[in-house]
């Protein structure tokens, strides 16, 4: 029997290595779970490619029968009196119903909210607003959904905050809730109102 005596440090390192790897993986997993909880980590979230840029060039018509002004890129160029929220919605979209009270609250606070009805029939979009109240000061219709793709939209509702200089500062994919306003949108509005 002549097994070479292994270096004790090597043994210890070999034992420690899997423990270290497991510890590291656990720490990473914990960070991911925490991020999922606080909303800072979303594996399904598509980060917007437009942040820090001006909105794409577009001109959309108002939905037929609407008495609100329509929306075009020219309305979002610099020199705005206040930051603007551009909200893509649809009457067929359930989360849009969830966020609707928040949009109404923003309107009461004097935040200009511009609406884009995405892949919606004009009558349905207008009916949605007639039933639930209209938070929008401008209303456009993107029935084919092509302008939405220029914005990088991948679902409704989706909202974009445009600062007074006409730069996209924030994008929220999903319904704006009370928490969203408290944590993100409220502070952002205060920062970009200055």
């Amino acid at each position, binding site marked *: 029997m002549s097994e070479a005596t292994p270096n004790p440090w090597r043994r210890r390192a070999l034992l420690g290595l899997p423990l270290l790897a497991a510890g590291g993986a656990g720490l990473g997993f914990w960070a991911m779970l925490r991020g999922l909880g606080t909303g800072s980590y979303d594996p399904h979230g598509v980060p917007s490619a*437009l942040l820090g840029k001006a909105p794409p060039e577009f001109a959309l018509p108002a939905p037929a029968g609407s008495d609100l002004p329509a929306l075009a890129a020219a309305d979002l160029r610099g020199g705005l009196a206040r930051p603007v929220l551009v909200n893509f919605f649809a009457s067929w979209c359930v989360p849009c119903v969830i966020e609707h009270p928040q949009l109404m609250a923003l309107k009461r606070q004097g935040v200009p909210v511009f609406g884009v009805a995405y892949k919606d029939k004009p009558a349905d979009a207008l009916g949605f607003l007639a039933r639930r109240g209209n938070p929008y000061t401008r209303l456009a219709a993107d029935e084919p959904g092509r302008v939405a793709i220029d*914005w990088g939209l991948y679902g409704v509702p989706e909202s974009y905050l445009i600062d007074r200089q006409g730069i996209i500062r924030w994008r929220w994919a999903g319904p704006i809730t009370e928490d969203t306003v408290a944590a993100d949108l409220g502070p952002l509005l205060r920062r970009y109102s200055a």
Partner: protein
Amino acid sequence: MRRWLFALLLASGPAWALSDPAEQLPDPTQEQRARALGRELRCLVCQNQSIEDSDAELARDLRRIVREQVAAGRSDGQVMSFLHDRYGDFVLLRPPVNAGTALLWATPVLALGAGALLVLGLRRRRTAAAPAALSAAEQARLAELDRLP
């Protein structure tokens, strides 16, 4: 009955979402190009499918855009950058190499390196565990054994 169902299942083949002939380009080479491009693009709704495989409405819109641009004679690079400008790296099923994805791309090399180190270490230990030389007493005993009938 069950056998028939099974045969039907086999015959149906891969369920391409793009089964609508109205979506396809009349020129087969252009259609081929559009399909190849579509397979490189992630459907942002279902996320683990390409826009070519997905049945989501947004994927259909993106397929249409790819086909329009291919038919208009735009290059593969132009079509890809059109979508990359709007949806960022996320839309690319083959992520680009940059600071954020360096670890992702380096993983195979790192794993191979770690494996090579492990193999080298094990081999060295095997050579180290070679039998020690026989002592004089052992040699004498072995010689004794050899002498036995």
